[in-house]
């Protein structure tokens, strides 16, 4: 009985973090999905409808959610790391990865399935299905690794300087190059170029100013708002 209770206790700890991260990125995902869907409805020109279609919307949404989710699960969010630090957890990285491992696997699987499903609905052939899975796997193999590296690098430096910010920015650009490679391989270069631009813009418009504000606040010793 005690063992069963312990199991549920540990399971609950996972769900606690699942909800914490899940909610954060689900919110982002929903907003992006609505935006992309709205664009695809209102701009139905022949050229754009080639680019903005159902798989695109699904892929874009999944990608945004996945990048943030996986990199956060790998390295822990700022709040999670701060908690571990203040509680004196020495092997923080190991604890975070162990704790979040099941969630990382879960989200990777979900994203592959979602994307594959999105492609299957539009082009229900075995070839497309394989392409969709390969497409997603290529990105999964590369993007979270670089994204995680940059996030860890930024979060570990509680006092990031200009150099750190440049490294992170560079990592985000590098992380999105696979879009171009995969797009070229699948003859969807324009679609991938668009995703590349939108994603990089997203990080630079939303994420970098946030980090830069923090950087300025810390380095110039400005009061917290």
């Amino acid at each position, binding site marked *: 009985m005690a063992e069963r209770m312990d199991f549920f206790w540990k399971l609950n700890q996972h769900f606690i973090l699942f909800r*914490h991260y899940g909610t954060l990125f689900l919110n982002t995902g929903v907003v992006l999905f609505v935006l992309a869907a709205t664009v695809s409805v209102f701009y139905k020109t022949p050229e754009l409808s080639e680019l903005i279609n159902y798989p695109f919307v699904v892929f874009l949404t999944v990608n945004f959610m996945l990048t943030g989710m996986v990199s956060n699960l790998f390295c822990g969010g700022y*709040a999670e790391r701060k908690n571990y630090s*203040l509680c004196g957890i020495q092997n923080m990285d190991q604890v975070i990865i162990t704790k979040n491992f099941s969630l990382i696997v879960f989200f990777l699987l979900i994203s592959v399935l979602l994307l594959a499903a999105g492609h299957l609905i539009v082009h229900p052939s075995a070839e497309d299905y394989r392409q969709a899975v390969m497409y997603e796997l290529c990105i999964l193999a590369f993007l979270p690794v670089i994204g995680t590296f940059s996030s860890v690098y930024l979060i570990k430096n509680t*006092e990031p300087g200009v150099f750190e910010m440049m490294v992170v920015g560079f990592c985000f650009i590098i992380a999105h190059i696979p879009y171009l490679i995969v797009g070229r391989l699948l003859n969807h270069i324009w679609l991938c170029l668009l995703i590349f631009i939108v994603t990089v813009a997203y990080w630079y418009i939303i994420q970098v100013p946030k980090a830069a504000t923090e950087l300025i606040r810390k380095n*110039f*010793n400005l*009061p*917290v708002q």
Partner: protein
Amino acid sequence: MNVIEINKLTKSYFKTPQAVHELSLSVPEGSIFGILGPNGAGKSTLLNILAGLLRKTSGEISIFGNTVDYGDFEHKQQIGFVLEEPHYLEKLTVREYLHFTASMYSIEKKEAVKRTDELIEFFGLKEKEDVWIQKYSKGMKKKVSLAAAMIHRPELLILDEPLEGVDPVSAKEIKDNLRLMTNKGVSILVTSHNLDTVEKFCDEIAIINKGKLVFQCKTEEIHSKIKNELTQETYESLEEIFIDVVTDKGAKNVNKKLSWL
């Protein structure tokens, strides 16, 4: 014995070369040590350095008799922190967050549940225990931070404005409880802007201005008309002391007025 010894601590930023400048002070065991100072005096910077979230530029910090630096973790297991920038996971309920915190201190499940129940009851969060922390008011969030800082029965509490936004009834209960903790040997380092609270609550106070220690005394001395050795002025209240030591000489008697009022 002193639980915290700070020796010539300096922290420099790019635009603020002396956020903390050669600051030395010590916190005796089992006492409540208050740090006062105007906005931007360096109080939060000092506490963030003690919490290991900021690197010091120079100087030495010793906690529980051991020299500590940025990146040292072991000593933090015996400390509870309430910092200016909250660090709770906002998408959790108070119960979930306290369970999460308890698990980080390796507190057994049964004990964690018991302590969480008591803390929720003590801080008056029972009614809102199913609500996410992000929906809480500022005062309630402070209570959550305090509860998390106390769950592992720390030997030292480092509290940055712990009663900010907390209602007077809860504030009194919290202060009473903290005092009880000090009777059992817990030491507390606290910052506040509320002079009255500090005067009544702390055993010893230090005033920091522009990163420097400008005044230090035991609170019982305030009422015995203590004398500032530098200026030879005699004070009767903490407010007098505070205004004198943080205001530029000659400017303190100028009554500032707003032109349109």
